[in-house]
Every structure is written in C-alpha cells, then in structure tokens.
C-alpha cells in the first residue's frame, strides 16, 4: 500500500503540471471547454503510450518479483513487431499471426527461462545475450515492416488489420486516435496479472521465490518451473507489445524498434514498488509505475523544453520521485 503513495504523488504532480501548462498557455480568446478538449486529446495520446509501456512493465515486474531480470524485453518487442509484419506480409492472416507472435514471444521466454533455471546461468547475462540475439534475428527477418507494406502485399488483410488496430490501439481507418485502447489492454492485462499475483497460488509462489528461493523449494514449490513461466509471460507480453507497436506505428525498423524498452519497463516496475531484490510488487503499482515516464516525457515536450535539457530534467524528476517515495515509506514505517 504505502509503496504506491510515492508514485501516486509523483503522478499527481506530473498531471497537475500538465494541466497547469495547458491552462496557463490557453490563449485569452479560447473558451474553457476548448482548453479542456485539448487537454483531453493530449491525455489520450499519453495514455496510449502508457498502455504499451504498461504491458511490458507487467512482464518485467513479474520477473523482478521472482528475483530475476530481463534485459531482452526491448529486443523482443522489436523482433515481434517485425515478425508480425513479415508474417502478415507473407500471407499469414493477422488473426493467426497475432497469437503466433505472442506464442513466439513466449517461446523466447521459455528459452531464457531454461537457460536460467536449468543451466543456472545469471539472468542478467542470459537476457543481455538475448538482447543481441533477438535484435539480430529481427534484422535477419527484414529491415523494416509496416501496415502499408502488408496491405499492399495482402490487400485482403486490410479489414482485419484495421479491426485489430481499432480494438488494440484505438485508431480508426483514417489513423485517428479515438480512444487509448492500449491503455484498456493494459488494464485488462493488469487485472489478469493482479489476479494471478494476489489471488492465486502462483502469486504466492512467485513472491516466495523472490524472497527466498530455497524456502520455496523446501515448501514444495517447483521453483524452476515457476521461474521459467514468469519469463514466458514476460516475453509473451513483450511479443504482444511488439504487435501493438506495429499496429500503432507508421513502420517499425528492425534495428531499433522497441529500443530501450527493457530499461523503461524495469524503471516502471521499480517506480511502481517492485524491489530488484525480489519478493515485492503489486499489480496496481505496476500500472502506476508505467504511467510515469510517458507523462513526464510529454510534460517536458509540451513545455517546449530545449532538447538538450530534457534528459537532465527527466533524470532529476525520476530521482526526486524515488526519494519522495523512500521518505513516505520511512514515515509509514516509523508510524507503526
């Protein structure tokens, strides 16, 4: 609970800053309703990005809860986007390609999991190698992929692709963003993850493993299997995020699609209350944590900050948020 207060405070401040910027900058002649409309439009843009971040954050957070780490997330996102593009371009129906890509992501996670649990390799190392491998695999598949290329090659798929795009990304056939569907996807997935994490036996196993793998093993938990599963889920979610990226973007470039996302996902998870020592985290926290970076980036962009200033401002804000969070937790702890 208290783990959530810090990130909530941070988010509140950022959103307040955002709305304040719009209100302050509203031209004198503009009616308030118009300002509100513009704010809303911008918040939808942000929510859309938050949704996709959130999806991978969920996966990263689960891995972190079990005491692991996955640095291959960004590469898997890129790979999956490219794979989806290549598959559909070559005639695999989008409705088939979607589960296929997600399954493929899951397979990647299974390989990661096997290497980590069977060969007892360090997760950092395995997934760092994975980062190279899957990035390379994407490049071997294609240089770039795009909806237009797919539709050109497979005109029949236009409708189904557009359907997926509307349902998963919220963009209509003209490309207009109607609603932040990706955020809806995130909420649905977060509910599922939250159920498993907080309401089912599996969640207990994951927390137990994260805190004390040996104790979990001695209590009869199949530690290897559970850990492997968590990697599967993480990479499958990255696979889904890849499809979202494909559907949302003008085009995806194999060498860079999804770049840095593993860091952002881990950041979101940690801001949301996961400890990299394992054993801590909540589904609500993950969603909140994932919301931070996109709104922060939006805020600095909207305020027209000089590009050279942006990284510093982002870094310092995140740090301030982290410190705030720590103080709130200390307070709470002292009170009890």
């Amino acid at each position, binding site marked *: 609970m208290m783990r959530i207060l810090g990130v909530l405070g941070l988010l509140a401040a950022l959103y307040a800053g955002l709305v304040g910027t719009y209100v*302050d*900058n509203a*031209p004198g002649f*503009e009616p308030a309703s*118009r300002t509100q409309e*513009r704010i809303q*439009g*911008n918040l939808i*843009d942000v929510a859309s*990005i938050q949704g996709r971040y959130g999806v991978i954050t969920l996966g990263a957070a689960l891995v972190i809860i079990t005491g692991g780490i996955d640095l291959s997330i960004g590469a898997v996102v890129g790979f999956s986007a490219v794979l989806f593009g290549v598959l559909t371009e070559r005639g695999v129906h989008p409705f088939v390609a979607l589960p296929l890509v997600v399954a493929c992501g899951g397979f990647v996670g299974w390989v990661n999991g096997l290497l980590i649990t069977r060969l007892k390799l360090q997760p950092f190392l395995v997934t760092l190698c994975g980062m190279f491998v899957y990035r390379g695999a994407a*490049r071997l598949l*294609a*240089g*770039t992929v*795009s909806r*237009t*290329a797919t539709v050109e090659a497979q005109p029949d798929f236009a409708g189904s692709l557009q359907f997926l795009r509307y349902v998963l990304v919220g*963009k209509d056939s*003209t*490309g*207009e*963003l109607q609603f932040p569907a990706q955020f809806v996807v995130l909420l649905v997935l977060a509910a599922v993850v939250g159920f498993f994490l907080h309401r089912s036996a599996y969640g207990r196993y994951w927390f137990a493993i994260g805190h004390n793998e040996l104790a979990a093993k001695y209590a009869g938990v199949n530690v290897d299997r559970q850990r492997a599963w968590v990697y599967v889920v993480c990479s499958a979610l990255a696979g889904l995020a890849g499809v979202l*990226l494909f559907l949302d*973007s*003008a*085009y*995806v*470039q194999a*060498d*860079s*699609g*999804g*770049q*840095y996302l593993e860091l952002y996902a881990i950041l979101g998870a940690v801001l949301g209350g996961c400890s990299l020592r394992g054993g801590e985290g909540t589904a609500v926290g993950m969603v909140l944590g994932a919301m931070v970076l*996109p709104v922060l*980036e*939006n805020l600095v*962009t*909207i305020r*027209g900050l*000089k*590009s050279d200033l942006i990284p510093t401002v982002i870094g310092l804000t995140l740090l301030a948020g982290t410190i705030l969070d720590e103080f709130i937790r200390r307070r709470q702890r002292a009170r009890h």
Partner: protein
Amino acid sequence: GKKDTAAKPKVGIITNCVDPFWDLCEAGANKAAKDFDVELVFNQPKSGDGDIQKPVIDAWVSQGFSGIGVSVIKPKEQTDDLKLVAKKSVLVTMDNDAPDSGRVCYVGVDNKEAGRAVGRLVKKALPNGGTVALFIGSVTSANGQARPAGVLEELATPDKNGLAGRHPSRPELSGKFYGNYFLVDGEPKIDDMVKEKAASNAQAMLSRLDGVPDVCMVGLYAYNPPSILEAVRSKNLVGKVKIVGFDENQETLKAIADGHIEGTVVQDPYNYGYKTVEVLAAEARGDKTKRVAGSAPYQVITRDGGPDQTINSLHIKFPKAGDYLTAMREQLASVKR
C-alpha cells in the same frame, strides 16, 4: 592454406548507422561489386561509442582491403584518421564528405543545398508564411547540422533570420522568425534516433499547435516524415497540417503519392553504393577515370513531379513519387536480402 585471391580486390563500405536508406545503398553496391568483379563487405554499424567506424576500418586496412568507402559523420574531426586510411588504401567518401582527407572523390549530395530544397518545399506548402516545426534525430553529425541550416537559410530574409520572438497568435509559444515563418522553440526537435520518440515528439507538437493555422512539419531524417504523418493522422489533421520530408523512405513516398505529404528531397543512395564501388574497383586496377567531381544532384519528389531545373548550377530532377517508388523497388528487388 593460402587462397589465390589476388585476382579479386576487396573493398569495404561503412555507413553511419543502420537504416533502410543504407539497404538501398547496399543494393547498389552489391550490383556494382558483381559488375566490376570485386569482393565487397558492406557494414551498417549500430550507433554507439564515439568512433563506431574506426575499428572496422582499421580491421579492413589490416586485412589489405584495396579500397574503402565511408559515410563520414564529422568531416573536420575525422579528417586526420581518414588521412591515415587514404595512405594505406583508396578512400572514397560518400553521403557526407571530408574534403581534406585525401579521398579520391566524394559521392553524395551537398546536405546544405538539399536542405535548401526542403526549404523551398516548405515555402511551396505555405506560400504566405506560417508556423514551422523541424524534427531530426540529432544535430551533432554533419548532416544533422547542414540540413536544418539549409532549410532555415532558405526561409530566412535578411531582417528575419533567427529573430527570437513569440508566436503571433499563440504568445505562449516562443521561437524564432525566419522570414514569414515562425520556428517553434527556435530549434529542431531531437529524438536521438529513437523512432518511438520521433512519433511522440510529433504528436506532442501537434497538441501544442492545436488550432494554429498554416502549420508545416518538417522531418529531416528518413524516419521522421512517416512518424509525423502517423501523428497527423492520429489527430485527424491530414491535409490541414502540411508535411515536408527528406529521404526516400517507402512510407514517405507512398504518402506523397497519396497527397498526404507535400514532398521530399532524395539522395539516390542506390547510386551512392553503385558509384562508390565502381570507383573503388577501378582504382584497385589503377584506373583513375571513374572518379566523380563535385557533389551529386539531389532530387525533389512530389506527387505530380515536374520538369528538370538547374539550381545553383546543379541539374535537379523532379520525379513523381509513384515513379520513383517503382524504380526504387526494382533496385531493391535486384538484390535478394
């Protein structure tokens, strides 16, 4: 055992990043390698550490490559290192020049000139002036500096050349005036080559410019125009917000053909590759006649195209987007990936 490879010279080309732009170049280079019977290694390095190219070039030199083509990133700074290369091998610069490096010739356009062509497209899109936003990956490399400079030079008038001020109808926006054009924030918006950031940059800009008439968004790296278009679509502003691009990204060309993007300035990377290998192959056999002089002409692509023109003593073509796209695909298809 030793192979008798004496007959076939080895040449290498190294680019400044990974990009579909360079896939086209690679296609041209491969074609030329076949045509002129050389062994070609084409390297698109992932950006990172300051000197991404040097270790590769050094390795090639130590392997006795007879010629090397380089897309220079920072001409002045790299000159010394390139001089050493030119001493031990034949050096051709392409895409970005380093004139004093001892290279035998440069294959590529003048990025500043090409930037000016972009500026003219902006003027065409907004003949009465308006609000302009520039988008680019980075402003530290030579082309990242030359292109925006060219655009702004073309827009500027002597009295309004970077004059700081506030937007006439939206005073909360600060920026700079270049002629009748207001550049938002007074600088290009940078995305550090992260494509998703390029998209969110464009989106946020549209959100800020909501309601402002006569807007033109300019994307100066290959992935920028499609990212801008995607953002413009997401706000249902296609046609209302003008877009001008750079480079021959397929998405850009398609959008021009559809009338969603005003136009783009292209460099013909296929020929960069072809020509560079041709020169290197000739040099390896002692033939100096293939060298090219001056910078190559860029081309300006719009939906309807137009007649050739001579601009600043360069012969410039104005192809139609559809035609150019078709030709480009043939080039790509000529080499299987």
